[in-house]
């Protein structure tokens, strides 16, 4: 049976954070970015590679990324770089993500609700 090539629903919003993080390290075009995600995640994040473009366009429209068509390796590419607004957004998303991870981890490792302890 083939493995399903989609990610769980709770990863909503995570692709944006991943893209902003990787692009903040260096500007990249779509194909490069997909390769970078694969390498950085050890291929744990699976997705149709074309899905990266609607996401990049959304972030560009929001002003988090700045696209520019330039020549790379003799071919014209749209290279995305993170804007200052994007950096702020990334920091904000990172904080939120850390809080969620910490809270879920706490629950999964036996953390109890405060009210339950009082009761």
């Amino acid at each position, binding site marked *: 049976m083939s493995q399903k090539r989609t990610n769980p629903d709770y990863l909503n919003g995570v692709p944006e954070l991943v893209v902003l993080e990787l692009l903040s390290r260096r500007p990249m075009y779509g194909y490069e970015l997909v390769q970078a995600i694969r390498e950085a995640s050890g291929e744990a994040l699976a*997705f149709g590679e074309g899905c990266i473009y609607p996401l990049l366009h959304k972030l560009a429209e929001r002003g988090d990324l700045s696209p520019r068509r330039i020549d790379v390796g003799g071919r014209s590419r749209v290279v995305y770089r993170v804007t200052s607004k994007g950096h702020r957004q990334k920091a904000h998303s990172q904080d939120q993500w850390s809080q969620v991870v910490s809270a879920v981890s706490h629950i999964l490792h036996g953390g109890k609700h405060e009210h339950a302890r009082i009761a």
Partner: protein
Amino acid sequence: MNTQELHDGFQTELIRRGLPADYASGAAEELADHHRDVVEELRATGLDEVAAATEAAQRLGDRRSLVKKSVREFQRRHWCGRWPLLTFLFGPLVLLIATWAATFLPLVLVGGILNAMGIDDSSNDGVVSTAEYIGMWCFTGWCVFVMPAVVLLFLSLRASRAGLNWGWIALAAVVLAVNVGSMKCGYVGKLSGPEYTNLETGEPLAHDSFVMSIPLLIFFSSFRSTANWFASNPQQVCQLLVPLVVAGLVIWRSRHMMHRWERGLSSVC
């Protein structure tokens, strides 16, 4: 599927779904670049051209799903794309009332200023002059024909910019048609105006009275009475038809442009 086929197919599908040609072209170009890169990567591993192209297309993902995601992303950029039901169901009436207010308030203001200056042309001598008739009919025509058409054109433009399909324009047209078409307005007994009766006494209204009536559909007792209300005079039928005709023309034009673009693309290929 080779890169050019992927590019053209994706671009055509985006335009068919209502996205602007320049956006569709840019998005298809980027996707084709990506496809080309993956093909090169796979060719370097020893795959032949055809197998590499097929594998590359699979890696990009299902085209329908990509188109859907791209269209949704584009629509979400616009307020009316995020809230289409709110915009095209309630927006027409809100905009119509706003445009009426924008027309009516300056007239009241000018009238007030003229009155204050002692220049009062509205002497109630019991006789309505031809100029007054023409003025009032122009005003009526402006409110019940021109303004609804302008509102619909404005909403059509918004829908087109947001890449929304023609169904939303049709919805706005029906909302406008039902509401504007239900209004009875005009001079009684003049210019084939409708016959009006006093709601309390049931007697016909006197000639030379200007009547404007906005019914609440909930009070219509039957389909027949509703149909009678809407089709009781030619002006009202025109009020009903204008938004529908404008919407029909807008939709026909957008579909015509799309077909022309598709024919152009196929002749280039």
